């Protein structure tokens, strides 16, 4: 049977150099942030997680910031504020 050579349609993966610091070993005394994606119940979930982390893991403060809507990125000032004030940030995703 004859053969045919075809090119791949998959896009080219770009080279990146970014990296993230290691997660801390403990959240005691830390400030935890949440990016609220505005989907239903995320505010309640974040508040509940924050309460558990405060009660059981010694988290010092919990900050929750809401995006303008679920489908667009968080405003730069929200990201800058969380980056300045928080040690760990959780971003809500999905429904």
């Amino acid at each position, binding site marked *: 049977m004859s053969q045919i*050579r075809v*090119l791949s349609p*998959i896009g080219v993966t770009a080279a990146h150099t*970014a990296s993230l610091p290691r*997660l801390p070993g403990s959240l005691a005394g830390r400030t935890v942030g949440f990016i609220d994606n505005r989907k239903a*119940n*995320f505010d309640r979930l974040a508040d509940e997680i924050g309460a558990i982390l405060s009660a059981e893991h010694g988290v010092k403060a919990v900050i929750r910031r809401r995006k*303008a809507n679920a*489908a667009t990125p968080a405003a730069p000032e929200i990201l800058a504020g969380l980056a300045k004030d928080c040690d760990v940030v959780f971003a809500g995703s999905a429904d």
Partner: protein
Amino acid sequence: MRALGISLPMVAIEHPLGGERPDGVARRARQAVDQIRGLLGRWSSGASEIGRAELADVSTTSEIERAEPAGVSLSPPSVEADLTGPVTIPDTAEAVLAAFCERQWCDGLPIVPPTEARVLAMLAGAPGDRSLGAMPPLWRLATLEKLAVNAVMAGCEPAGFPLIVAAVEAMLDPSFNLYGVQATTHSVAPLLIVHGPIAAELGVHSGSGCFGPGFRGNATIGRAIRLILLNVGGAWPGRHDMATQGSPAKFSYCIAERADASPWGALHEDNAVTVFGGEPPHNVNDHVSTTAAGILATVADTAVSLGSNVGWYFSQSQLLIVLGPEHAQTIAGDGLSRADVQRFVFENARLPLRLLKLGGMWGIQDWPRWMHAITDDDALLPQVPSPEDVMVIVAGGPGKHSAVVPNCTFSRAVSRPVRPI
């Protein structure tokens, strides 16, 4: 984020969260905290396998997988090979289709094998390594060569390649929000609207059945865009395209506007393409109205429903009205301009606050302050921010039908000229 070269730890909880009662939310919070505990001190961007191993032990992951029917895998292809490089396969139609399906390189339909010779012919001398930018959701580079490979596969003629390139440039405009269009659970797909003489030159049909089959230009150019979104952007259903149901418009969605039958002329006279992140067309059936008011009342009523993502979510909402030529003539016969049509739909495609409170997106809508301030349950609220957010074109053949195409609120229509590459 892994596509950007950054691995992030992830906490996965039962889906969905929306609609759950307080005890269900509390259960999910506990699931999250248990996983967070496992990640602390053990995760760094260079050790993401730890995070994934933690996830594998979470019962919610298997529950998510069980939510899909048996017999269909949403997993990445199992082919043990470099999926980004050329492959040599048996030269039969059946073997080529099987190989492309196995690698998840196509939409499930037969393709034209993208040989180097065919891809070079598609490029017609354009530099294959030129990139139009990174395409979400996996942020792979949209090089001209990769666009050409997908255009060959779709069955496009080389003459249509500049149009495809212009459409990709338009989709990569930040205001189109391609990341949202690609990844959302909504059924949105980019609709290509071709303007100017190039539409006829490329065989992009604007007449009878223009949203349907039978026309190579519409079918293959629209399909090329979908293949690019799948293969370059990486929006595979159930993985990175999270559409709950998707739509047939995700196979191919391309029409031309019918300037010759438009009482108001074309939206763009010159060769251009508009990308509009839209739902499939909603039919407007009006066989009896003999006035602009009658037809536009039917249009406006078709545009509004509680389940529409447009309007009740509001932010950046747009409506596309595709008038059939007969409806357009009746409306223009009453002296209405295109701007009048936009104003009429803006003023009449509305629902009362009391209805909006019943469900849909109530409680998470992104409304301006003046709308939030309204307390009168009988107040009629608009779907789009302004009359200019109602786009009006003419397309189709004989008959008393038109279409409304709501967008997926967070995406704005973008037009680009079609020029030689």
